[in-house]
């Protein structure tokens, strides 16, 4: 009962205080808001990049070219040998014959179409292939090499340079976002601590009297920490709305993908709600931490 009474009094007082010190509250709130907007952007960016990386990894294929003098039986033998490799499972290997490939190439480009139409299917330079997906992307180089050694395979390709570059760019972006995020959160916490310090300075006497009449340190701290909590919650409203509405707009605008169909954006639901929760959490923690730091100064002798 007693704890409840103190608690409800604290909530009431910290609510009042947010409005009593309105201009200072506005300063803290905008501070939180701006940070959280940037935080939201970097979370959305880094999670999407994460998603890109995954979808690219899922689409990376080793193409093994088969010597055109091999008959059906020989091809089947080669397939079994590839399946025997550690990094390959049966469901991830697919045979694509030269006719099919020629058609795809003709569809892709007018120039190739012109060239190919003059060449008969018998004399085509296009080879039969196996399209192989690996279980572990890191070992793709080794697997490709092993496939290349199999008798009847003339050549192996897996677009190593493009893939490696893309993945490394994405990794850099992701790292950058995370560092930015951490730095921002820390900077805001201290900014808020300073803003709230000014608020609290004007209430120094109140704190002194509370101490004098025997309020415990916790007792004094709680209303201020609550106040920080309120500021954090209020400050996260705008970033959350921006996230929920803005991201859905962007997603619709790009039809859920970037540049090519296999770089997919994370679909908005429930993604935006998770991000919102994270924003709310950061806002609350940063607000409370700021207040706590600010009031701590006045509780020492």
């Amino acid at each position, binding site marked *: *009962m007693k704890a409840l*009474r*103190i608690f409800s*009094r604290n909530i009431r007082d910290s609510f009042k205080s947010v409005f009593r010190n309105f201009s200072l509250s506005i300063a803290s709130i905008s501070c939180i808001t701006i940070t959280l907007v940037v935080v939201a952007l970097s979370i959305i960016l880094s999670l999407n990049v994460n998603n890109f990386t995954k979808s690219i990894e899922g689409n990376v294929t080793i193409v093994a070219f088969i010597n055109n003098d091999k008959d059906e039986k020989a091809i089947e033998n080669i397939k079994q040998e590839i399946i025997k490799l550690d990094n390959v499972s049966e469901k991830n290997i697919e045979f694509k014959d030269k006719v099919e490939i020629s058609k795809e190439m003709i569809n892709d480009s007018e120039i190739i179409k012109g060239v190919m139409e003059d060449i008969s299917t018998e004399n085509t330079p296009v080879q039969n292939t196996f399209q192989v997906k690996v279980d572990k992307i890191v070992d793709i180089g080794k697997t490709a090499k092993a496939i290349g050694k199999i008798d009847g395979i003339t050549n192996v390709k897996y677009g190593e340079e493009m893939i490696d570059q893309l993945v490394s760019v994405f990794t850099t972006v992701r790292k950058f976002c995370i560092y930015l995020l951490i730095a921002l959160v820390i900077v805001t916490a201290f900014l808020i601590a300073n803003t709230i310090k000014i608020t609290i300075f004007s209430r120094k*006497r109140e704190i002194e009297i509370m101490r004098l009449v025997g*309020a415990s340190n916790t007792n004094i701290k709680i209303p201020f920490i609550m106040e920080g909590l309120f500021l954090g919650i209020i400050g996260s409203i705008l970033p959350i709305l921006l996230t929920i509405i803005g991201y859905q707009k962007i997603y619709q605008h790009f039809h859920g993908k970037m540049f090519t169909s296999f770089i997919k954006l994370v679909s908005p639901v429930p993604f935006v709600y998770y991000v919102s929760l994270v924003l709310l959490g950061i806002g609350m923690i940063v607000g409370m931490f700021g207040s706590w730091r600010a009031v701590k100064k006045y509780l*020492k*002798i």
Partner: protein
Amino acid sequence: MDLIRLRNINKTYKNGVTAIYDLDLTIKKGEFVFIIGETGCGKSTLIKMLYREEKPSSGKIIVGGINVAKLRNGNVYKLRRKIGVVFQNFQLLPKLTAYENVAFALEVFGLPKDEIHKKVVKVLELVGLKNKAKHYPDQLSGGEQQRVAIARAIVNGPKLLICDEPTGNLDPKKSMEIMEVLEAINKLGTTILMVTHDIDIVKQMGKRVILLDSGQIVKDYEEGTYK
């Protein structure tokens, strides 16, 4: 029974000023004691150490059974609940009424409203301010504000009331009114320790008087012997 016991107290401030020098003092429960002495002799420093606003550099302080010198910062509130403090400049919150200023001291403990009301009314009556409970500090005279401050200091029923020049800002008549209030509080069993420059008051009250000079007790007058 001893309420306050100081042994070999030294206090040197960070800037190198030694305010209290090898001081011993014992005060019994229920006493009314004046502390007098020239400006800068260490009176305020001495009482600040009692309610742990300052820490002694060395020595032992016991107040109401609490080892004050060893008290951790987080436990200071336990000491403060046994002590009421009144200053020369009243220290009231300007945005609260007389009633609210006194109630403030109880609200921080989470007492129920009706209990707070009972205690505040009783103590405002004791200091003679029952009819001005709804006034804000700037609507009260200096003497009245000081009585609100005293009411706030004693509303918890502390064992010890410490006053640092409570009549410093008041004329002789208002000062005597405050002294009457303090006398009444003392009669109810609260030990009172009062720092003052007002020799007339000290002579008139006829209590124990401690004379301080350069951080040391130079004379300890028994009740009624200071003339």
